[in-house]
């Protein structure tokens, strides 16, 4: 089957917010925290309160992660090189609303320490490198991503509908963290950041491939390199920061979309970051048309990952047919003979489909060649510092080699980050 002969059976998401089912377990995931090595502040079996610190970054003790629910730490698994794999918390049935905190937030230093102490720091990601920023770093600008990265993702204007005041308070808090501008990147329409002063600026990105990604916004508005750094943050985190600043309540809820061909009713659901996906989708999946098993992705089908937990930065849960069952479908003899079975990388054929798949004004084939041989210097000269893994997801699919260029990019970025 040729790439453009595929029918997308995914139905559009109904953009109304429903309360999701209660989830029994939530997890803090190492996959969301590249390059972070945890120093645990709780042990297995400990009781933790909502908002209590569970671990901090070994390199920056001020960067803490907090528990989004009250409950008991069920398991802590570590990954390679003392990174975290997952910290699972079983939530208590009786969740009581916490008392509002009193937070000093008038000066930049106070705002910074309040966000650090409340575990909001991991909401920010730096460009270059796509990591959690150092506690004392000052970005040249902050990019608030208020765009949906695909047609099935939650519509930010719907999600922010009744939280606009909180969102505005959050934007004002952002101005205390940077000396430059706060870019509010939106799809065309009414400016939701209008009239908030000269430093909060609405930027508009027409719908199109990759126009929903922070890297694309940054590439067009404020390109970065080794000496210039900006931060990006998602709109739901800005609204949560706004709520903390305005009311003193730390809101861990997150609105995600159920999507994919196997979703019974594609719609928006209010749940918690890190929620257990089997709990969340218990009554949401359709049976497979050929009896194929279900495959649950956190994030979109193109850029997400197969997971049992909702990722920190994901706004979508994709319910898909399990790929391994595709092999059982009737397949023509010719296609079976033509199908690549090798576990090695196939050649890179420099088609113009690669240019179409990358949203950056960068020569893509030389970049992919540099990444695939691990040539960090050339990749840096070509502008790989502006990207993170998700920006190369489309390219990886368009390329004949079958390589995961996102993973290659992370490898090169880690090498460059160590030198920087």
């Amino acid at each position, binding site marked *: 089957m040729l*790439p453009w002969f595929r029918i997308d059976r995914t139905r559009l998401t109904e953009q109304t917010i429903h309360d999701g089912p209660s989830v029994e377990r939530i997890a803090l995931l190492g996959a969301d925290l590249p390059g972070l090595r945890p120093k645990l502040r709780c042990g297995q079996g400990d009781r933790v309160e909502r908002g209590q610190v569970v671990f901090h970054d070994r390199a920056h003790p001020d960067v803490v992660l907090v528990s989004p629910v009250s409950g008991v730490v069920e398991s802590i698994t570590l990954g390679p090189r003392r990174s975290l794999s997952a910290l699972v918390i079983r939530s208590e049935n009786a969740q009581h609303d916490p008392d509002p905190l009193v937070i000093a937030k008038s000066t930049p230093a106070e705002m910074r320490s309040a966000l650090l102490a409340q575990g909001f720091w991991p909401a920010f990601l730096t460009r270059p490198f796509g990591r959690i920023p150092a506690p004392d770093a000052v970005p040249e600008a902050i990019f608030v991503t208020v765009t949906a990265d695909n047609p099935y993702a939650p519509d930010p204007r719907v999600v922010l509908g009744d939280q606009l005041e909180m969102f505005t308070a959050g934007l004002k808090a952002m101005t205390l963290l940077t000396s430059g501008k706060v870019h509010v990147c939106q799809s065309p329409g009414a400016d939701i950041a209008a009239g908030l002063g000269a430093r909060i600026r609405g930027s508009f990105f027409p719908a199109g491939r990759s126009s929903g990604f922070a890297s694309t916004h940054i590439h067009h508005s404020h390109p970065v390199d080794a000496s210039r750094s900006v931060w990006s943050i998602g709109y739901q985190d800005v609204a949560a920061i706004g709520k903390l600043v305005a009311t003193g309540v730390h809101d861990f809820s997150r609105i995600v979309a159920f999507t994919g061909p196997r979703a019974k009713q594609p719609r928006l659901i209010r749940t918690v970051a890190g929620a257990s996906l089997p709990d969340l989708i218990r009554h949401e999946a359709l049976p497979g048309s050929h009896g194929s098993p279900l495959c649950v992705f956190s994030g979109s089908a193109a850029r997400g990952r197969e997971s049992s937990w909702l990722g920190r930065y994901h706004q979508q849960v994709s319910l898909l047919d399990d790929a391994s069952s595709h092999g059982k479908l009737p397949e023509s003899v010719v296609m079976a003979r033509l199908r*690549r079975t090798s576990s090695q990388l196939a050649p890179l*054929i420099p088609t113009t489909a690669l240019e179409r798949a990358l949203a950056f004004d960068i*020569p893509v084939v030389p970049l992919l060649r540099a990444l*695939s041989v691990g040539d960090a210097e050339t990749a840096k000269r070509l502008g790989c510092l502006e990207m993170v893994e998700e920006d190369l997801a489309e390219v990886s699919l368009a390329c004949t080699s*079958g390589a995961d260029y996102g993973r290659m990019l992370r490898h090169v970025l880690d090498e460059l980050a160590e030198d920087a």
Partner: protein
Amino acid sequence: MTGWLLDPQRTRQRTGWTPARVTLAQLVALAGPVAVTLVERGTPQIAVLMTALVTCLIWELTFDLIRGRSLSWHTATVALILAVLVPASVPLWQIAMAASFGVVFGELVFGGRGYGIVSGAAAGAGFLVFSFIGTTLSLSNEALALATLPGALLLLRGGLVSWGVLVSAAVVLAASGFAQTGAGGLPTVAASVAFGLVFLIGDPVAGASTNLGRWVFGALAGVLIVLFDTVAGPAIATAAIVFASLLASIFAPLIDHMAVAMVIRLRRRRHG
């Protein structure tokens, strides 16, 4: 490098290009021109096609067995292009020699399609003209050009042929044709170069791989075709396209290198 493969769950959720699909698209695109050639030239041309096909696949099978890979069928496209370019008057053993040289030294010794530096079909056709005195490749005509069109659209849509290469080469050829014979000669020029432009000059592996580089590459190929052309009048010899493709391919990495240097310099200037 191993361990860098894309998650199979993700690749199956959204179809992308694979080498097999590239081969399939090229075979589909070649079906029209090959059919027209066979209908026009009759049974002797079927012998040419079979000789080229069998030779190419034997070589590919040999290399795949040595390297322990599954058969990729890529060399079938080389055979089909050769079957269109080579007339039936050429002895079959010469065709087998040319096809062998084309697939082995154009593609297989480098590791297969996608790793070589020239188009395998161009290498084979060039070998035929150079080695056997008096051999001429068959001239293209209107029917072949028309049969090329649907395949060309398919390849353009899939990104397997670049607009930049085709347009810049066509502009150079049209300008030269106009200078020689005026507007009346342009249809002849178009008919004689269409197949070669799409399947030899347009080969994505042998050409430049940056956007800017593709325009320069196409223009260079156009200029070389005009220089090498030996046929009087507006028609263009197929051998000229073959040699222009070979020579331009050799310059493609240099063109890309300069294009990348220019892009990087522009980036520096823009970002300070």
